[in-house]
């Protein structure tokens, strides 16, 4: 059971700072995701935790012990790679036994541990198969089993679902999350897929350009993003211009906008009269037939995708909104609509630029 503490960790390649002084404390048993676009330093961070990449500066502590100078093979980590990295010349059983052999585990214990883990990943009958006789999802589970069978201090996953098709990816998210809960292992998960990070993690670390943009629970990141970049990275967002009127109840500001006066959640204080940008998530918006109050507008496009309908709505005030609703309302392209947004659908992103 391990607590991981990363302190001012930096990695420079020449003059480029791939990872720029990041600090994260990961609690024992916590599932943390490093989320960001490619090149944001998330994979480099993971490699430094694993020991495949040397840290230029800073410390990585496992339970208080700095491991920066400990080689990868002595760090006691379990790692799952994007391409699974199963040994193609070994059977599933041999793949799983490899880490146990390195630890000089006695044969009988080895057998029982392999059987237990294979059972856990639901691959009981597959121990004599070679990796290329397995499907992508099965290979993925073998990779997980191989990382877990050595009972490592920390589990590291590097975009493990990137090579799977959409349906399997969703299944595996739940599978990995449940498995991690059951084993209770401290886990660091690298992904560029915000939905993956949200569904699986206790906390998400959003990274841009080698730095941490925000750390928080998935709901925090999604509902209270620190800035526009984060808001846009973790989902679709409508930007609404507003003007501060004054303070409202606890932590809220009264803001005037095209939707009238609303009390909006905010992290910071702004003087009355300040022009601000509000974010409004597409799924928070409600469309009603014309003449029912709210902001008036016209549907310019409608995209039906089964579980939801996407609308583009041009407000009479000139703004264009992206709206997502359940398909139970029947509003057609070209219809005039009343657009309603509840106060808690807004978030005050910051002063307008």
């Amino acid at each position, binding site marked *: 059971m391990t607590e991981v503490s990363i302190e001012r960790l930096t990695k420079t390649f020449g003059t480029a700072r791939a990872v720029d002084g990041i600090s994260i404390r990961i609690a024992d048993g916590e599932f943390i995701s490093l989320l960001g676009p490619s090149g944001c330093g998330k994979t480099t961070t993971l490699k430094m935790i694993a020991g495949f990449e040397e840290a230029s500066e800073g410390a990585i502590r496992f339970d208080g012990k700095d491991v920066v100078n400990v080689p990868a*093979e002595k760090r006691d980590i*379990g790692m799952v790679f994007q391409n699974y990295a199963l*040994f193609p*010349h070994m059977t599933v059983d041999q793949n799983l036994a*490899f*880490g146990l052999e*390195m630890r000089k585990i006695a044969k009988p214990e080895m057998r029982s541990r392999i059987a237990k883990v294979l059972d856990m990943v639901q691959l009981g009958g597959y121990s004599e198969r070679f990796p*290329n006789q397995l499907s992508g999802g099965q290979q993925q589970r073998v990779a997980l089993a191989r990382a877990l069978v050595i009972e490592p201090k920390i589990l590291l996953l590097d975009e493990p679902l990137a090579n799977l098709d959409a349906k399997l990816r969703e299944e595996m998210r739940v599978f990995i999350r449940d498995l991690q809960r059951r084993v209770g292992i401290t886990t660091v998960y690298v992904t560029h897929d915000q939905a993956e990070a949200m569904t699986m993690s206790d906390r998400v670390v959003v990274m841009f350009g080698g730095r941490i943009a925000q750390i928080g629970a998935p709901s925090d990141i999604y509902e209270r993003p620190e800035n526009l970049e984060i808001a846009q990275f973790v989902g679709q967002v409508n930007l609404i211009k507003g003007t501060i009127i004054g303070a409202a109840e606890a932590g809220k500001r009264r803001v005037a906008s095209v939707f009238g006066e609303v009390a909006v959640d905010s992290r910071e204080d702004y003087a009355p009269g300040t022009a601000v940008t509000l974010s409004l998530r597409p799924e928070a918006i409600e469309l009603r037939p014309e003449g029912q109050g709210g902001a008036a507008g016209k549907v310019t496009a409608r995209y039906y995708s089964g579980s939801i309908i996407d609308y583009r709505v041009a407000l009479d005030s000139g703004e264009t909104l992206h709206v997502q609703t359940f398909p139970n309302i029947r509003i057609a392209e070209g219809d005039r609509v009343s657009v309603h947004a509840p106060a808690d659908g807004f978030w005050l992103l910051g002063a307008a630029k």
Partner: protein
Amino acid sequence: MRAARRKGLGPLVLIAPAAVLLGIFLILPYLNIVVMSFRMPGQGTPYGPGFTTGNYTKFFADSFYLHQVANTLWIGLLTTAICLVVGFPVAWQLARGTMRFRALAYGLVLSPLLVGIVIRSYGWTILLGNAGLINRTLTGMGLIDRPLPLMYNALGIVIALVHVFLPFMILPIMAGIQGVDPSLESAARSLGASRFTAFRRIVLPLCTPGIQAGCILVFVLSLSAYVTPSLIGGLRVKTMAVTVVDALIDTFQWPWGSALALMLSVTGALCVVIFARLTRMKWKVARP
């Protein structure tokens, strides 16, 4: 119907040119050699009338020739072993090194192939001879009193052959290593294997086909090399290939030369088979 016929003929048409070439220029001459090796020696002609096994009894009766076969095999083995030891690290760097290094190293590896084999072998005689560059430099520096025997012996032949055949070792091994996903090493190390263990247990078995190909190529090429051994070995050290050419062209004994050539082929092939069996992969990549 037509589609099916085309499908059946397609592969045949594709391999036909190669098959014809091989048939005319390899299989037929080989058969001719086999027949020739059983003919009677001629009197002033390349071969005489009638057939005999005498060429082979002569070969096995005279320890001189058996010794020469052993010598040739030994030179081949040594050349292959040195090429492997010298070539593997280069192949590794070529496969895994940085791009800038790779371009330069590629050029260096391929450069011996750009110069004709005769010229290269002459170059070695200039370097290795008693009055050659190496010996002159060493005597000049006072390190040795007498020239080192570098030419007209097996050592000289091996040195020159290594130089000539090194690319044939490096390129297949490089391809083999390139076929091994670098993340497999990372995976092995994350499981607790040292760099060396990761190499031995994971990388080495997976690039065995490349190593096999390189070794077989260099070994076979070394056995059949003629120009380099004849220039550097001179009259003192002869490999089988040199003796075969002597018999066929200089002394005009076609049946005897054919028998010698066949014995060289057979022993070489035997060695390759034994090598392949010994280094046979213990795993098979099963297809789903």
